[in-house]
Structure formats: C-alpha cells, structure tokens
C-alpha cells in the first residue's frame, strides 16, 4: 500500500461508516477539486454507486465553466443531484464583512436544505491543512440546532470510533478527506484521472488554486497548465492555498466566525 492507497482506504472507511449510520444523508458537491475527489471516493466505497444525493448550494455566482462541468458529470456519473438556490444577500446578517457575508449565503441555503429534507448528516470535503480552524475539526462533527459549530466542546474521537449517536435536533457533518493535503488531492486526481474544471489550469499566466464565487475568488500567477506542473508548483510554494479567498482575510477571525455559524 502506498500513501495514496492508505488515504483512499481511510476515506472509504469513513464513507462506509457514515452510510451505515445515517439514512438521510447528502454530500456537498461544490464542483471544486476536493469535492470531485470526494465523489470519486464514494464511488470507490460503494463500488461504482453513489447511494445518497449530491447537494449543491447555488449562489448564482459560480463560474460558467463550473455550471457546465456540473451538468456534464451529473449525467455521466448517474448521480442524484439536488440544487438549492441561496437566499439573496439582503437576508444575511449585515454586520458581517462583505465577502464573509456573501459566503454566508451558502450556509443559509444549506440550513434550509437540511430543514426541508430532515437531513441527519452532511458530507463535506474540507481538509485540515486548508485553514487553522479546519485543522481542529473532527471527522464526525456534530452541529447544533442552527448548524453552529461548538469548537470549545468537541466530542472525543479516537481509534476510528466516530460520534454516531446524537440528540434530536442536532446533525452531523462528516469529513472524509480531512486527513488529505492539497498535494495528496492533486496526486490522486492524477493517478485516478479524475475530471476537474479547467479553471485550475493556467490561462494567460493565471490560474485558480481554490474555486469559489466569481466575485470573492482570485486567481494566482502561474504557468502550470498540466496536473504535473501544478504538483511541481505546489511542492515549491510557500503561499497558503486559500490566499485567493477574500472572506478568509477580511478580519482576524472572519473565517472562524463563518465556521462557528455553520460554514463548511
């Protein structure tokens, strides 16, 4: 078993554990590289099937390439796709900094989706190495009545025994690729030949390292136009992955506030 095999086996174990425990579960498919890897891992776990819906909270502000990608692969992979439109910005807490407020629309859409479908568990493709508050996450992470995250009192989690019992009114976020790094993701995409949106590849000297909404995501200077070149670039970089995500940087604790309020 090599490193990627080990990562894959662990993710498969987590997904199977989740599927065994929760009947009403959905996976967030944001169309970015991480969530594509996650869908792929689900097909590994369930031998070609994705036995739960893929959920997409539509801000209406994704890149056109992303919408095209979604249409193509939802059909090709034969998945059950649920699209939920995000509420307009006016319905979001006006005290948040602008980019953070824009990002919070997704949290709100997700909360409504959970309520409508009485969803017990949401699978999300966050990783520990992305950002410091995510580093502190659990694989099975409980959320309160309003999807909020209580980082001060997280359940113990060891020996792959996850929290699978919880009080009514709470739900669980499941993070099957929490233990992967950005490089792991790219190496796996390369090995498995997983489709990704073209925006990750260099175009006129710029490429996206992380994909979000058009108005709050910025490309980086890069000539990397193949997966191999992207991997070489990442092996040498000292710049943080989410540096192009505006809402992470508006205030010292902006992203933490987003996450405690239920952001992925």
């Amino acid at each position, binding site marked *: *078993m090599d490193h990627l095999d080990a990562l894959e086996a662990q993710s498969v174990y987590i997904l199977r554990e989740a599927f065994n425990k929760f009947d009403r579960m959905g996976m967030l498919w944001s169309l970015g590289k991480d969530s594509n890897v996650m869908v792929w891992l689900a097909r590994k776990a369930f031998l070609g099937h994705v036995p739960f819906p893929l959920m997409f909270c539509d801000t209406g502000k994704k890149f056109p390439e992303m919408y095209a990608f979604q249409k193509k692969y939802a059909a090709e992979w034969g998945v059950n796709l649920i699209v939920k439109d995000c509420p307009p910005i006016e319905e979001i807490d006006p005290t948040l900094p602008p980019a953070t407020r824009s990002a919070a629309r997704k949290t709100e859409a997700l909360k409504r989706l959970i309520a409508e479908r009485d969803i017990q568990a949401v699978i999300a493709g966050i990783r520990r190495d992305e950002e410091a508050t995510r580093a502190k996450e659990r694989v099975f992470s409980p959320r309160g009545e309003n999807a909020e995250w209580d980082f001060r009192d997280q359940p113990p989690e060891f020996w792959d025994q996850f929290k699978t019992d919880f009080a009514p009114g709470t739900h669980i976020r499941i993070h099957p690729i929490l233990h992967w790094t950005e490089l792991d993701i790219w190496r796996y995409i390369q090995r498995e030949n997983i489709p990704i949106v073209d925006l990750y590849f260099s175009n006129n000297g710029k490429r996206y390292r992380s994909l979000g909404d058009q108005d709050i995501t910025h490309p980086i200077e890069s000539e990397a136009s193949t997966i191999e070149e992207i991997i070489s670039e990442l092996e040498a970089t000292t710049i943080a992955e989410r540096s192009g995500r505006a809402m992470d940087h508006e205030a010292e604790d902006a992203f933490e506030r987003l996450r405690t309020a239920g952001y992925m």
Partner: protein
Amino acid sequence: MTVSSESPALKLVVVGHVDHGKSTLIGRLLHDTGSLPDGKAEAVIKMSERRGMPVEWAFVLDALQAERDQGITIDTTQIFFNTDKRNYVIIDAPGHKEFLKNMVSGAALSDAALLVIDAKDGMQEQSRRHGYILHLLGVRQVAVVINKMDLVGYREARYQELTGDIRKYLSGLGLEAAAIVPISAREGQGMVARPDRMPWYEGPHLVEVLDGFSPPVLPTDRPLRLPVQDVYKFDERRIIAGRIESGRIHTGDRILISPSNKTVTVKSIENWNVKDPALGASAGQSVGITLSEQLFIERGQVISHESNPPIETNVFRARIFWLGRKPLEVGKRYKLKLATNEQTVEVQSIETVIDVENLTSSAGDRLERNGIGEVTLRARAMLALDEFSENPKTGRFVLVDEYDTVGGGIIFMEGYPDQRTRGDVRSTNITAVEHRVTPDLRAHANGHEGGILWLTGLSGAGKSTLAIEAEQQLFAKGYQVYVLDGDNIRFGLSSDLGFAPEDRAENIRRVGEVAKLFASAGVLVLTAFISPYRADRDRARSIAPDLFHEVYVAADVATCEGRDPKGLYKKARAGEIKEFTGVSAPYEEPVTPELTVDTSDKTVNESVAELLAYVEENFSLTRNGGGR
C-alpha cells in the same frame, strides 16, 4: 512546503502539562525549519505587538480567537511540516486537564510522541497522565524535551536531575524515551542545531530525534482480522464491506465468521476503477468481498481464517481511561464499540483505580473523569475480540453513554478463558437413536426422577463434603445417586487437561455431558466442581436444561481460606499455584441458582439437610407425584 516524496507524513503528537510550552515549541519548530507559509511569521509578530507582548510563536497554532485571548490550546490542531528527511504532521494536544478528551483524540492518531516538560516546574500531574495515556493508546515511540532551559540558566545539574525522574516514571509504564533533549523553544536552543548555550549536552538536537523515529508498519503478517462494516446489495452482487485490520485475504480462502462460527469461501475481491481484479488484499485496505454461498452475515462480525481465530467471550478485562462527566460505576451499562461491533456491556467490577502520580493502584467502586483503572466488563452476547497485546485493532474499544463517547480501553483476558464453542458435532453419519425405555419408565422403576445437582462454589466452600455426605444419605433412602468430582473425572476422562482457563472450560463441558448421560439413565447426579465461570455453567445447563439444578455452595473467600482443607490457598498466596480461583482467578457467583446453601455459619449436617430437603421436594415420586 513539503518534501517531494510521496511517503506518508509521520504523525507526531506533542503532549505535556499546561504552560510547559508545547504550542510555542511547535510554532518555533515550524519557523526554524522554514515550514511556515509566507507572511505567517510577520502576522504572528504583528499580532504579538498588537497585544503588547514579546513574539508569541504559539499564535501560529492557536489560530482561534478564543485561544489567542486566553492563551491556551483548547483543541487538537494538526500542522504539516517537514525536515530534510521527511514530512510530518504535528498534532498539538492541549495540556489542560479539562481538555483530556481532545488530547486523547490527537494522540490516538499519532505514530510517535513528544513529551514537553518545563525545566523549572519538572514533571507535573498532566505530564504523568499524558505519559500514561500514551502507553494505553499504544504509542510506543516517545521522546522527551526539557523546555525553558533558559529559565534555569541552562544548568546541566537541573537537566540531570529531571532526566532521572523522567526515566524512572516512563520505565514504570514500560516506555523508554528515545532521547531527552534540553531545549529552549522561545530562544531557539536545541531545536534544529546543537544548543550553543548548553555545550555540556552531547546528545541529538530535536530534529535529529524526530528524524530517528520509525514510520508505522502495517500488521500484514498477523492473523487475519476483517470486521464486517456493512453488507451491500447495490446490484446483482452481495458484497461484504470492511477494512482489513490485520493479515491478508485471498480469493479461494476458507474463512471463519465469528462469533457465529460459520465457515465459507471467498469468491472474489471487488473493486471499482482498477486495472486488474484483485486476487488478494492486506492490512489497511478497505475491501469488498463476495462469498461462495449466501450466509447470514451482519455488521460487527469478524472474519478470520480457521487457524488463529479471535477469542470469543462475553466477559473480559480492560484497562480504561475515563472521559465521561459522570463517573464509571459498577453495575452501570454502556454501549461498547469494538471495531464495527456494538453491544451493551455492564461493569461487573472495578479491580483497581490507578494513581498516575506514582503508578500505585487502589481499590474503588467508581472511576472519576480523567481517571484510569482496570475493570471487568460483561456483555449479553458473545463478542469476537483479541487481547490488545496480540492485536491492538481488535483489542481496543470505546464506551458510549447516551450520546457521548465516555472512555476507551484496551483488553486483556487474565483469568478468563476463550469461550469459543467446543463440541460442535464434528462426526458425520450420526443418527439419533430413539430409546424405547423412556425417562418416565426409568423414574417409575427408581421411585425418583433423574437429574443433575450442579454444586458450584469456591475451593473450601464444602462442595465435596456436601456431595459425598448427601450421596451416602440419599443412597440409604433408595436413590440411584452418584457424585462426579475432580477425582473421578480429572484422573480419567479429563486426564489430558490442566488448569488454564481454556482447559477448565473444556473440563466443565465434559462434566456437563457426562452428567447428562447419567441423569438420562435415571440417576441423580451430584457434581462438585468450582466451575467459576457463569458462561460455563450456563453451557452445562444448556446441555440438559430440564434436568439441571444449580446449587450455589456459598462461603466467602475468608471463610474458605480459613478452612483451607488441602492447603491450596496457602500455596496460591505464595504464588506456587497460578490461576487459583478467589486468589488469582475470578469466581463469578450464580445469579439465579435453584438453591443456595450458605455453609459459612452451618454445620455439615445442617447444610446436608437443606440439600436433602430440596432433593425430596424436586425428585422424589412419593413426595409430589413426580416431576416439578
């Protein structure tokens, strides 16, 4: 940012008492090895200035607002970093006592541990507790740093003094420190180079120690253990899903399912998006297999080969660390999660409560939050498990109370036998013979029913005395009666067995079978065996449920030891007899015996009279027209 190798990162947990400088050490280590993203160091310096304090490297990790304001680590954080040799994931675990559950969550993921001790403070309660938990979690590679050497003037004497304390404590846990490095994280001494302020120190610096740790090895050469995680029927295939915790599996293998004890053959190993179908798989892989025939298989069962199967038992001992807000108490029930199995267990007893300060143990009937102790747990159903020393993955478990994980433990079986069912009928071509002489005819000829009086109790409780005396008196009354005891069984039928728990269990099984034959022949059988395990007696009962009467010959250990007719207790106390019931092996009292004869405050005659009254009541045809 990363070494350009595809090998997995070594997971390192940093533990120790609160304020001994764990987060500072990590922040500094990241900085000194050039592992920080651009701008992070500047941000930390700025943040420190804003708060009017010297550069606080801990801010690198303590990214949460609350932590920055309180200056403590609330939860475990994971940070990726690298040396020239390899990649690391550093797991920073909080030192605060109330965050022990977070420390456990972090440490359980690690391949190696770094214990941080403050040069001025020395070993503190949490240093010891963390050391103990590392040992319970099975983390065997441990290095120690003595931090803040700047606060003790970089004195060698202080280093030597602490080193002695630390080595002594760790050796008490069976741990040995790979190295004990004197450092100052704040001043950058001894981290990535020799500490120039401590020329007297000739050992390795911190990074050299880290690079000396070994990566984890998958247990592919251990016996196969594949706990069933789920069974899928998405298409025409019926797939058994699970992760191989140890060993290897191949198509065509004959496998054993425990605890149902069925065997079946592996037909195929299923995958998705691979070039060639797999013919084998090994430890660490999450697999899907199909079987040669459709057996009833469910989550929680364990797949192994027929040789080296897991232990089957409904009772086991464990060393536990407790995280629950409410204490663990004798008699309480919890949900056990062991690999993929979930069962209700009851705390039968707490043998010892361990004091982490000095590693002494004392008796207790509860285990408080953050406590450690040894307990015996009993499940209602059979469990397939291993001793932790044999197989960590199937020899450890967590306990759940209501919605929360409240503790973890590792299994050892001292004094308890493997109860894997023996005596499944192995011979084939057997046809049951219909007897023409019925039990009724026999009973009428004898004037009483046949049956089994199963005497159980400690050595010295009076079982043999009672049985022999009752036999004589019943015979005089015209009963067909016979005593089975150690003498007539151990020297013949069971001459091949010793006194190990498994042998004892097998001996009792044979006695049960023989007693059934005697009773079916119309005889009243009295058996006089300690038979300490409830499960064994229940099995003996199941051999002949209508004929079986459990008689508890009760007397406490002190009384029996006072009698000590054969001098056995004396020998056991002197350690000459291993596994002696009541001294070094458990005795499980009957829960609902048909009769209890308390011999501690009665003469032999009084006790015999009680037994005889019971026999007359239940077996004599003249007294009650037969039967029960």
